């Protein structure tokens, strides 16, 4: 087995990212297991999307490094310019689903999905046509192929972005809040689709999400980001049993909410009795 095959597909080592004086990622060391679905969870504003963008090479870290098959992905802010061979190879094998979808609004649904195949591969037209049709069919967007993103609902745009992310049959897919703005049924459907597509194509996935129940059900591995560091990394079973207070507060927040509401209602009933 070669060194690169033994190394984790994607990893970070002491990653640091600042915006001005604000330190968003303080020291993130993380490994993304090959062929698995890793969910990154954490409170809003803890830097989950920033971490994903550093993994994708969209943001240049201020310190530490991102490793793709054991090789540094690109530059840090202090050394050479980005655009290395490793980064180019990584981009050929990776897809990214943006939180805001990032669909090109001047292109139709069909053109958006076909774009990465037309621009970044040498596939013949017939193959591109077949792949785009298949991707749109899977995401139930076949009849909307000629519509522009602005003519679609938020859920349809999300599915279109997902179709574009999967059409290249990537080895790594980075999902930034894939279910943001979706109703519970669609949310479940998206997680089911990710799990199904992952099993079918065998890609490695990193999913940034707030939806803990869905993440626990659909992902093989979880990492909790807290105050710029990875507070927990393990399987859903380990997540459910760990005694770490930060993890526990995150994990038990629905139960805590139910308890608070029950206490509030009991208090209201007591007030009514006294009144």
């Amino acid at each position, binding site marked *: 087995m070669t060194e690169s095959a033994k190394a984790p597909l994607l990893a970070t080592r002491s990653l640091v990212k600042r915006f001005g004086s604000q330190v968003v990622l303080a020291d993130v060391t993380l490994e993304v297991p090959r062929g698995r679905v890793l969910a990154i969870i954490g409170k809003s504003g803890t830097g989950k999307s920033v971490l994903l*963008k550093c993994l*994708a*090479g*969209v943001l240049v870290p201020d310190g530490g490094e991102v490793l793709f098959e054991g090789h540094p992905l690109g530059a840090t802010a202090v050394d050479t310019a980005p655009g290395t061979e490793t980064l*180019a190879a990584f*981009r*050929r094998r*990776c*897809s*990214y689903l*943006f939180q*805001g979808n*990032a*669909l*090109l*609004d*001047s292109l139709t649904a069909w053109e958006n999905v076909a*774009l*990465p195949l*037309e*621009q*970044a591969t040498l596939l013949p037209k017939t193959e591109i046509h077949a792949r785009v049709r298949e991707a749109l069919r899977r995401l139930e967007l076949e009849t909307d192929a000629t519509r522009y993103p602005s003519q679609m609902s938020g859920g349809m745009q999300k599915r279109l972005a997902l179709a574009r992310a999967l059409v*290249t049959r990537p080895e790594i897919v980075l999902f930034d809040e894939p279910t943001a703005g979706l109703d519970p049924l669609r949310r479940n459907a998206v997680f089911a689709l990710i799990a199904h597509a992952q099993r079918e194509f065998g890609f490695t996935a990193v999913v940034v999400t707030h939806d803990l129940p869905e993440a626990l059900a659909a992902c093989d591995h979880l990492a909790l980001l807290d105050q710029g560091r990875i507070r927990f990394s393990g399987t859903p079973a380990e997540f459910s049993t760990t005694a770490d207070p930060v993890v526990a507060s995150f994990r038990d927040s629905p139960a805590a909410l139910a308890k608070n509401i029950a206490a509030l209602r009991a208090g209201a009933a007591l007030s009514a009795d006294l009144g």
Partner: protein
Amino acid sequence: MLSALGQSSLRIVSEAGDLARFTFRGFYSAVGSRRLGRRLARSVYEQGVRCLPVILIVGVFTGLVLGLQAYHTLNRFGSSGLLGPLVALTLIRELAPVLAALMLVGQAGSALTAEIGIQRNSEQIDALETMGIDPFGFLVAPRLLAALIVFPIMTAFFSLVGLIGGWLSACILLPLAGNVYWASIDNAVKAADVSECMVKAFVFGALTIALCCHNGFNAHRRTGATGARAVSASTTRAVVFSSIAVLAADYLITSLLV
């Protein structure tokens, strides 16, 4: 004060260098960019066809005013026969390239800065990068190449309708003979005048559209403004800087070629 002056100078030099690099990368990325023709055609349509009405309207009114002013001025000296050359040389050597460029910046340049700025803000440019698509080849190259096609054509249209405007003013509304007007233009305008006009059109096209693309592309780097305000600030900046650049470049080219 000296420190502030020095810092401003350094910033200007740095931005000029950044713009030069951006422009070079924009043109260079056209090499090997896939399906460039389709995007080039769209850019030519947006910069050219959509701007044609405003070019024609401004051109004809410029010619009309020029003809009117020149006729009355030359008539005082009994030289109204020179009206044709005066209108033609003023238009071809100066007004047509400058005014056409300013009109194109106002309409097409501002629109493309806003479009690229919104694409930057909504992460569409980041999305292109993650798909392994060079955003320079995809967004900048077709617009720069289109400018090299559109600006000379629009300048030629401006000159033509300007000459017709001058003729309307001097020969239809005022009593100058039409054959005198056209014959004197034919005698006065040389190939060098047309070359100067075209050189200016090429330079203004590359300069202004590069400035507009650069401002849109870097909308997220604007200090003191984010989101929609950053796009608006970038668009204003692109139009103002492009207008200044056209006039400054016009002086430089004229002083070199005259």
